């Protein structure tokens, strides 16, 4: 910390992965690119099981996990449980995709941001910055 404000943190590392086996990559690609262009280091996990979501997040030492959902919310909840069990309860998570509207509160109640189809990319990037403490002007690229 200097008198000129916080010293810049290194780029935040984000794991981007799909929880479901549906294979749709279109939304994932657009979001991954937006995060990369905003200065994040993006690790692409592909289609990960809940237990793999936790193990890859740990191995890659990420600051944030972004999950694309093409299935049910229970599977995302299992990923959150696996992360907690692996001691990663403090790593923030946000999700995007076809989350059933009625299931959204189950995720937001656990502090998980939900970005359904049609969400603005800048809103997603802003949330990623806030969740990783990169939201002061000094961290903007």
């Amino acid at each position, binding site marked *: 910390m200097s008198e000129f404000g916080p010293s810049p943190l290194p780029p935040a590392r984000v794991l981007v992965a799909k929880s479901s086996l*549906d*294979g749709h990559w279109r939304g994932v690609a*657009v979001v991954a690119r937006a995060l990369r262009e905003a200065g994040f280091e993006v690790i692409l996990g592909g289609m990960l099981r809940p*237990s793999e979501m936790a193990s890859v997040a740990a191995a890659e030492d990420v600051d944030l996990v972004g999950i694309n959902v093409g299935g049910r919310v229970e599977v995302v909840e*299992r990923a959150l449980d696996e992360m907690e069990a692996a001691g990663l309860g403090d790593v923030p998570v946000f999700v995007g995709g076809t989350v059933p*509207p009625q299931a959204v509160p189950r995720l937001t109640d656990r502090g998980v941001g939900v970005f359904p*189809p049609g969400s603005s990319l800048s809103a997603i990037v802003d949330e990623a910055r806030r969740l990783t403490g990169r939201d002061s002007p000094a961290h903007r690229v």
Partner: protein
Amino acid sequence: MIEHQPETTSGIPLKLLYGPDDVPADIREALGAPPGRAPYLRGAYPRMYRDRPWRIFQLSGYGNPEDMNERLKFLLFEAGETGIIIKHDRMTDDHLYDVDHPEIVERREDVGLTGTVTVGLRDYETILSDLPLDSIYAKPGGGVPQSAVYTLPSYWSVAARRGIPLEKLAGTGQSDFFLTYLGCPTKEQIPPEAAIRFNLDLIEWCSERMPRWVPVSIAGYNAADSGLSAHQELGAVMANAVQYLDMIAARGKVDVERLAHRIGGMNFRVSMEVFEDAAKLRAARKMWSDLLGQRYGITDEKARQMRIHVVTAGSAMTYQEPFNNIVRGTLMALFSVLGGTQSLGVSGYDEAMSIPSDHAHLMSIRIQQILQNEINLREVADPLGGSYYVESLTGELEERGWEFFRQIQDRGGFLAVLDDGFLLECAEENNQRIAVGMESGERAIVGVNTHTIDDPIMEVEAFEGRSGAETWEMAMERLADLRRTRHGRGAVEALRNLEEVCRNDSVNAIPAFMEAVSADASIGEIGSVLRETFGDWQVPISV
């Protein structure tokens, strides 16, 4: 100030007004041929919808086989659908995984969400119970090639057990490369070389035994909804067809001319870029007819006729204010018909959040029935024909489509551009442009990035089928039952034979798949044989 230059989604500049000079000479010539005559610019059949209305052909499926059977009976006998499509659970069916596979167990609540889940042939008997297989037109599933060789033989075997001869069955397969290797690459998938062998086997099998069956159907839809633009969709579809035809010719077992008509049942996307996409359907028919005439020297006009199935763009359906999607679906359906489609599926208004609910599904059928009955749409063939604007778009798409086709051929052909990631890159680039346009507001989507309201009043619950992991639990019981009660040695022998046949591409593999499903081999056991024989495709995805 420079005026902003408007253009279509695929980048064709738009003028304020079109006139006679905008219609290219060869389009003007093609306009002289009536519907039902090559090059089919004006339609596939002479009397178009006066003789046969387009087929209402909706995707449907979820849950366990009983759920699927109930839904199909409702759609056929009550709602008035004129063909059935069985949508399978993507996790188990596209991957050929048993429900106790580790990839499935950790995601068990997802099972049955994207389609019905089957463990083996017995489930097909349940799905198809009380359905008149000898008189319906069916698409039993098999979007990806490795699942088609399980799905189609299962459907055919159920019919055979009921004493219905194969030649009486009418329907279509899919085995689409765009879905498999571009749009939705799965976790594990046999490589394109193995898939194309199965497709050729299906084509030969059907041309010998099943005159009323379209063995494979190239699905431009999947190319387009993954991100390829209209002319890229056209060029890539033609490149895909050329791949099949050239390989069939090289095998030398079936005459290409006889076969071309089978390959000519294709599937395209119509999006909210409605004029461009209606023009695209017209261009597609002409391109196909020209291709077969010029490249393969086929003179028989009937052999050069393309029949089209359209699916309206799922990606156009918004999560926000879902009832707006009924309007979008209606517009896309209308222009699909104006482009001369033979069958049509309208995406459910809840597409962005789930597979269609009963209500959304019925709505898609009603949209089509209203178009068929209430606006005199069936009486006049090719109503857009001769429009300076539409003919200009048609000519432009054809020219650009052939340019993209040549680009693919120059890079080594269709299989090469799947393997080297070229098509993926094209799609990604377009998607990026679309995303930037949405972000800036240049691409306006009502209720999403323009005319939004803070307090939503048009909310819809997503359809989720059975609760929790119930569908999976029921499938686990059926799988255990299958393993316990089948003739064990018969299944083992059929699987061993299947493996031998897979390793020997000089024989047609379809009979071995028929035997394996008939011996109650499970879906996962068949998948294991394919995985061990062919390995896994390395997705060249840059994301």
